[in-house]
């Protein structure tokens, strides 16, 4: 079972990440400077958080396209709120999370209680959120306080804030996975019917998975605003496909039941690192898309091969 455990706990993608990072650092020694590491993680954090959120939904067997809309919406809202200082940043965080959770609740209600296919329903909510974002912020810009722009992208005791946030999310998942809510989430991803007959409130669990997702998208949008010190009504668009690529890279199974948030965090980080890595070894930017596409296919094949080996062992 060790291979399976490695795949599930994200150890596999961790190893991949470290290998790529090692090569990258060998080619580009300045990659190891504190500034570079901080910059790399600042750059990775929004995608990591978005992928973490999407994982909650994918684990229960669902799908959430609203990631692009929610990030655009929250990013725009953050940029029109003019609160300064640490307290202001906390206040904005509160509002951002509220909006994210609200969008998640709508998705969750429509999918879990109105029983509408997740892809279709979240496609609609994504479009609606993009529209609202355009109403709130007509063009990129807005205001992001210096506290958010500098402190949230800086370091605390020499440790970049972005690494701390990612670590906290990983810890949260570590605990959540062991709670009843976490077990039930994984259970319905494996077999929704059996879960229902086991007494799990399937609709409620699905509903909350979307709420978690919404909250994490909001967090992603919040840190995106901090990193770019600006807001944009189309900020979420690049996240749409990248988020799912990151989740896939982390080894979480589409269809649910297998994988985890930590793996997705690392998958997202790997995706961002990949861009740096390809740049450093001199791959023309024309072909980075091709490399990314191939890597996604290979990652899924690899994770599938691991599952195959595990299944084989279970049978014999």
């Amino acid at each position, binding site marked *: 079972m060790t291979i399976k455990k490695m795949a599930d706990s994200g150890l596999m993608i961790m190893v991949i990440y470290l290998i790529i990072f090692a090569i990258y650092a060998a080619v580009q020694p300045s990659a190891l400077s504190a500034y*570079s590491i901080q910059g790399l993680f600042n750059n990775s954090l929004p995608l990591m958080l978005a992928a973490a959120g999407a994982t909650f939904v994918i684990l229960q067997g669902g799908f959430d396209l609203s990631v692009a809309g929610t990030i655009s919406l929250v990013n725009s809202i953050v940029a029109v709120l003019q609160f300064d200082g640490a307290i202001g940043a906390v206040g904005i965080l509160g509002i951002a999370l509220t909006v994210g959770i609200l969008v998640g609740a709508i998705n969750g209600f429509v999918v879990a209680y109105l029983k509408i296919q997740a892809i279709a329903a979240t496609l609609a909510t994504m479009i609606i959120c993009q529209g609202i974002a355009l109403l709130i912020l007509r063009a990129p810009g807005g205001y992001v306080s210096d506290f958010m722009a500098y402190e949230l992208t800086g370091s605390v005791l020499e440790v970049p804030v972005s690494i701390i946030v990612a670590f906290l999310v990983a810890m949260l998942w570590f605990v959540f996975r062991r709670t009843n809510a976490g077990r039930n989430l994984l259970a319905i991803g494996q077999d929704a019917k059996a879960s229902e007959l086991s007494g799990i409130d399937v609709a409620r669990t699905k509903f909350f998975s979307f709420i978690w997702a919404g909250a994490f998208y909001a967090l992603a949008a919040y840190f995106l605003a901090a*990193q*770019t010190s*600006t807001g944009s009504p189309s900020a979420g*668009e690049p996240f749409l496909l990248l988020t799912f690529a990151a989740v896939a890279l982390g080894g979480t199974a589409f269809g649910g039941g297998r994988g985890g948030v930590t793996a997705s965090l690392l998958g997202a980080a790997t995706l961002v690192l990949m861009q740096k890595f390809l740049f450093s070894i001199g791959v023309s930017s024309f072909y980075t898309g091709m490399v990314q596409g191939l890597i996604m296919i290979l990652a899924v094949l690899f994770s599938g091969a691991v599952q195959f080996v595990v299944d084989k062992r279970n049978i014999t």
Partner: protein
Amino acid sequence: MLAAGMQPAEAKTEDGKWLIYLSLSYSGNSWQSEAANIVKALAKTPPYDETVELVEVISGTDPQSQISDYESMIANGADGIVSFPISSNALNRTVRHGCEQGVLFFMYDATVTEQCAYNVSYITSGFGENTAQALVNELGGEGKIFLSRGVPGNSVDERHTNGAMHIFNQYPGIEIAAEYYSNWDDRTTQQETSKALAAHPDVDGIWAQAGEYGAIQALLQADENRLVPMTGENSNGFRLALANEEYQAKGLSGVSAGSPPAQSGLAFKLMMEMLEGERDELPEDQRNIQYPLPWVTADDVKLCEGDTFEDGCNTFPGDKVPSSFVTEVFNPELLPELSLASALEGTPTPGATIQPLPAGVIENAPNEPGINCRNCDAPENLYELTTVEPTVSP
């Protein structure tokens, strides 16, 4: 700390060349590739072919991606970065970091609000208000018009439209019948204009940003005998149409103005002169450099015989370039090194060598908050007409 002074960039790559990066938002439309090709051609023109190593990087539409690419370029020891920035704010921190490392940043067309970067742009030159006034003049101050805008949620589109609305709002006779986003693209412009025409076949004029040639096609598709006055940007198709007597008879008149790809060439040459020490760097509050607004009316359209803008010509025959080709790739005064092949293929003109820029080339651009500066005030005469005079009073 942030205000740390800049040391002059001296480091060249190991083989003695300047390492210059060309960073694009996304490639794929005529404008972007022409602008990139101009830089590529200049970098291959002697003596730069011996002294410059140019690397092209495409960052897509995601500011985060461009941030990451800038960081990589800085880490790789870039001497200068010529770039079309994706966001006017998001790149600031990275740009500042690069400046501190001694990297020269030259933005063309789009701008950043970080003061240490040079912005070479026409944006502040009043495209919106001047074309709007020209359209009002054509319409005699009255009529139903369409606004064919750019990309939703884009600050350049917002600046242009604000300028135009500043004028239109002064004329109660002007009614904006429809306003739609055309993504600065011929095809989308054509589709969106078609939709608007279905509701308002009696439109009197169109104010368009890039993609304007699509609007003409939509008009012809709806009614092949009726065109209306319109203003648009610099596509070759539009200029040919403006000068086309048959189209004029159907009602087409107007002005071609807007974003010139040649901005990238000026940015690159300025940067190289500063790197080579031929030109002093400017203080941080004077780094917004205005590129003059091209302005071509039907009467001004003049076909080029050769492959450059010679004798004041400004349009190419239809069999030489596609209709979506953006003219204004040349500037005989500032960029005499270029030919049509430079813009289309990125190849240098045989026999050409880099000519120094005239001394007085730098025209400072006015401050515009959110466009080229932060925490600054816009001048009171922000939307003052610079190119055209009102011929009708409100």
